[in-house]
C-alpha cells in the first residue's frame, strides 16, 4: 500500500455516529451567526459630512467598539460597508469595486440622506440618487447627518437581522440579494 492511502477497514472505523445526529447543525448555525454579528468589522471609508459623524461614533463618547464594530482600512478584512456621504457618478464605480473586494458575508449600511436617496442633492446631475442603485443595502439610516445614536441604532438593527438569518451560506445563495428586506431608520 502506498504512503497516504487508507485501508477501507480503517476509514469505516471513523464513521462514529454523532450524539444527536443531525441536530448538530442548528447550534453551529447559531454560533456562526453570533460570531458574525458580534464582530462586524467595518471598512474605513468616509465620503463627506457623514464620515465625520461616523468618526465621532467610533471615538470617545459613543465608542463603537462596544458593539464589536471595528474599523479596518482594507476591504479584504471588512464585513460591513458604511456608505457615509453623497455618491457622485465619478465615485460610484470605486464604491462598487470596494464592495466586490469584500469577502462574503457582507452587509451595507447607507448612512445619511444622500446615500439613502440623494438627500439635498436630489436634483444634481452628478449625484447618484441612493447607493441602492448599485449596492444591496441592508439598513438605511436617515438624517443629515444622522446622529451617532441613530447610526448605533442602525448597527444594532443589522445585528438583529444577522442573528435571524436562515442559512450559514448567506453569501452562496443568490436569492438573498433579491429577497432581502431592508431596514429603515428614520432620521
Amino acid at each position, binding site marked *: 500500500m502506498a504512503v497516504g492511502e487508507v485501508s477501507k477497514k480503517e476509514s469505516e472505523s471513523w464513521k462514529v455516529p454523532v450524539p444527536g445526529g443531525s441536530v448538530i447543525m442548528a447550534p453551529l448555525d447559531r454560533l456562526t451567526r453570533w460570531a458574525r454579528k458580534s464582530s462586524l468589522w467595518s471598512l474605513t471609508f468616509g465620503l*463627506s459630512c457623514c464620515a465625520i459623524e461616523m468618526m465621532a461614533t467610533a471615538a470617545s463618547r459613543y465608542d463603537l467598539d462596544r458593539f464589536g464594530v471595528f474599523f479596518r482600512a482594507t476591504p479584504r478584512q471588512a464585513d460591513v460597508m458604511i456608505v457615509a456621504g453623497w455618491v457622485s457618478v465619478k465615485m460610484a464605480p470605486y464604491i462598487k469595486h470596494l464592495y466586490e473586494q469584500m469577502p462574503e458575508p457582507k452587509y451595507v449600511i447607507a448612512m445619511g440622506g444622500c446615500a439613502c436617496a440623494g438627500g439635498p442633492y436630489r436634483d444634481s446631475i452628478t449625484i447618484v440618487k441612493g447607493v441602492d442603485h448599485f449596492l444591496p443595502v441592508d439598513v438605511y439610516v436617515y438624517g443629515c447627518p444622522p446622529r451617532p445614536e441613530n447610526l448605533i441604532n442602525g448597527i444594532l438593527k443589522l445585528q438583529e437581522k444577522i442573528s435571524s438569518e436562515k442559512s450559514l451560506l448567506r453569501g452562496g445563495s443568490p436569492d438573498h440579494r433579491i429577497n432581502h428586506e431592508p431596514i429603515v431608520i428614520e432620521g
Partner: protein
Amino acid sequence: MITDTTSRNTMTVNFGPQHPSTHGVLRLIVDIDGEIVRSCRPEIGYLHRGLEKMFESRSYRHNIPFTDRLDYLCSLANNLAICQAIERVGNVEVPERAKYLRVLMVELNRIASHLVFLGTFATDLGATTVFLYAFRERELLLDLLEAMTGARLTYNWIRVGGMPADIPEGYGERVIAFLNQMRPRLDENDRLLTHNRIFRARCEGIGVLKREDAIAWGATGPVARGSGVNLDIRKAAPYEIYDRLDFEVPVFDEGDVMARYKVRIEEMRQSARIVEQVLKTMPEGDIQTKLPKIFKPPAGEAYSRIESPRGELSFYLISDGTPNPVRIHIRAPSFIHLSLLQFMAKDIKVADMIAVAGSLDPVMGEVDR
C-alpha cells in the same frame, strides 16, 4: 498600478480615493522611486455635485443650508460668508448683537474644526490616543453648539440680516466652563505631541513651503501663516466685530509641517480668548433685521471674504433683482492649498507625504463643490 514608461526607475501609484489617510476622497497620483516620492499630482472631483449651478435655481435663503455641506467641519463659517455676500448686495444692516453672536459661534466652531485636525493628523502619524482625546473635547463643544443650534454638524444657523435665535439662558457660563476645561487639556496635548521626540522627528523640516511659493500660489490661513506670511482676514480686512477684539495672529517662519500644526494649536487658544471677550462685551438688543418674505436684492455684485479655519473663504455673488442669484462662485481655501502639494510632496519619503497632505487639512466637500 501602472508603471511609468518615461523613466526606468519610477513607478506610478494611486493613493486613494479610498485610503484612511486622505481625509475624504482625495486621489493622489504619485510617482515613486523606491521609497522616495518624485512627484505627486492630486486628482479631485470625486465629490462634485454641481453646487454652484444648483445655487442658481434656489432663492437666496434656500442656498444657506447648502453651504453647510461645503466645509462641513466649520459650517458656520460658510453660512457667515454667504450671508455677508447677500447682505452686501442687498444693503442689509445687521444688528449689533447679532454680530457678536455670529463671532461667538464661528469661533467656537473654529475650535471644533481644529480639534478634528488634531485628532486625524495625530492618527495619520501613528498617535491614536490623541484622536480619542481630541474627540473627547470636541464632544463637549458639540454639546454647546447643539444647545444653541439643535444640530451637531450642519448647523444652518446664520440668517440674512441677523441670527435666528438668541443664546439660551446660562449659555455664557457653560461656554466659560468649557474653555476652562479645554485649556489644561490643550497643554496636556502639548506634552503628548508638541514636545514628543517621535512626533517632532516626523514633522520638523518636512514638506517645507517657501514664503514666496505660499504667496505666489495664493496660500491663506494656517498654511500661509506657517510659512511666515502674516495674513489673517480678521486683521487684514476686519468683518463683523473683529476690529474691536484683542487677539494675536500666530505666525511661524519655518514653513514645515510642524509650523502649520503649531499655528492651529495656537489659534485654538486665541479663539478661546475671542470667545471670552465676546461674552463679556456683548450688548443687548435685536438680533434680526426685518426683511420681506421674498427677498429680492437690487441688481449688482458683491464679494465677501472671511477667515475660515482653512484660510480665506470667499463668495462672489451676482444678482439681477430676481429672488434667485445669477451666479455664486466660491473661493475655497482647501482647493487652492491642494495645488501646493507639488512643491511640498517632492523628494520626500512616502510616509512623510501623508504628514504633508494631512498638514494642509483639506476638506474635500469644499474642494469639489
